[in-house]
């Protein structure tokens, strides 16, 4: 597959700057910081535990991201369709996968900015005691990968509609299912009738279960593979959707 990295870089640059073109970026970053801090401190019992560890902070990430990543991803393609810019973009001498990758990386980089800002919490734990920095590093990597998977799904869904609100809702639903697939609620409902391998499969796809493994400090291959392959698969579908459904 021929690929122009220059095109990817140009799309990345445009899209990354577009996040900061409106005050929305600042609002988003503030909300993300406030929510992740608030949930960790008040709902996660960060203080009561009396330990210098970021577990309560990371534990909320699957739930935070299942809302926030669709918010970051929804405009990537839906807005292009609504405004008609997709017609201009896809008649430039570029390949669909270059644009798909450039846009995804821009959203992912924006997510990285949000995560880097939360490192202030880590500084607090450093001040309070001595956190296990290996665990912190593994958790951050896991969180970034999981965010990427949610984002790729959101970008893909965004390519299917010209309505950002619909893109947001659909992406949040798909993300919610992936988070919930590891909970007892879902597994119990399946156990009644589905064959065992289906139950195992659903459980192994769970974002929560896999993310939990990573936050325990081991960069386990299956968890990393799950998130990375979700990203690859979602972006591949994204390319097919853009190629097949150019006109609105």
């Amino acid at each position, binding site marked *: 597959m021929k690929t122009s990295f220059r095109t990817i870089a140009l799309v990345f640059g445009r899209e990354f700057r577009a996040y900061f073109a409106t005050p929305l970026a600042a609002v988003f970053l503030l909300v993300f910081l406030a929510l992740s801090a608030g949930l960790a401190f008040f709902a996660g019992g960060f203080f009561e535990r009396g330990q210098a560890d970021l577990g309560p902070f990371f534990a909320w990430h699957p739930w935070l991201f299942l809302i926030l990543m669709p918010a970051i991803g929804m405009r990537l393609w839906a807005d292009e369709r609504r405004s008609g810019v997709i*017609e201009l973009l896809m008649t*430039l*001498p*570029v390949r669909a996968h270059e644009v798909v990758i450039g846009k995804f990386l821009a959203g992912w980089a924006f997510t990285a900015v949000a995560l880097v800002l939360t490192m202030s919490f880590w500084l607090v734990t450093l001040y309070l005691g001595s956190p296990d920095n290996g665990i912190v590093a593994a958790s951050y990597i896991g969180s970034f990968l999981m965010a990427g998977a949610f984002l790729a799904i959101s970008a893909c869904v965004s390519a299917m509609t010209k309505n950002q609100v619909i893109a947001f809702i659909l992406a949040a639903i798909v993300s919610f299912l992936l988070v919930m697939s590891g909970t007892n609620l879902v597994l119990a409902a399946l156990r009644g009738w589905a064959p065992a391998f289906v139950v195992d499969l659903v459980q192994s796809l769970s974002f929560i279960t896999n993310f939990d493994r990573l936050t325990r400090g081991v960069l386990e291959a299956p968890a990393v593979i799950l998130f990375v392959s979700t990203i690859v698969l979602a972006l591949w579908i994204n390319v097919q959707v853009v190629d097949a459904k150019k*006109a609105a």
Partner: protein
Amino acid sequence: MQLVQASGLVKTFSRLRAVDGVSLEVSRGEVVGFLGPNGAGKSTTMKMLTGFLEPDAGTASIAGHDVFADPIAARRRLGYLPEGAPAYGDMTVADFLAFVGRMRGLANSALGERLAEMVERVNLAAVWNRPIDALSKGFKRRVGIAQALIHDPEVLILDEPTDGLDPNQKHDMRELISAIAPGKAIVISTHILEEVEAICSRVVIIDEGRVVADATPSALLDAAAVDGRRPTLEAVFRSITGSKAA
């Protein structure tokens, strides 16, 4: 070689046959006025010529490159103004044109020259650093035209380029198109018939997805002449396409 070559283009939307077997050839130096009533299928045809929309049947090529088999090569030689002149509203005019230029492969040195030329030829100096969202309709259209011209392409497909321009700008735009026409093949859709007479070397009229006339403006008028008196282009347009509307 024809710079634009399309044969038997067909596009059906659910039940509606928007384009029904349109063929078109445009050679270097020609400016084709693409006319037809609202909904005749002009924009849909142009979307297929540019490779944006896949036809149900038929083929299209730009400068000898099939728009589907060899899309990148075809698109390199093409400048396209889509209907409504879409653009990234959050970008300034300067940033947007630089982005399109770079995406079209212009290196920084060439890009600078081309941007300077666009400022002058399309009269964009007054809005150069304004976000596109904040521009009036006419200026937006001009940004769309500049975007199509930025890489000095051989083939230009412009969907209603003068819609929303003031009389001075319309005049300037016609001068610009006439000035660049000799080296290019240009297809312009428009509802302004005086424009066709001013700049087009050929008129193609479509109605309900079919080509109903394809001739030079004067041949078209001669053919419709009664007692040696030529009707206006508007009268010809109406008599060819107006039967059901009347």
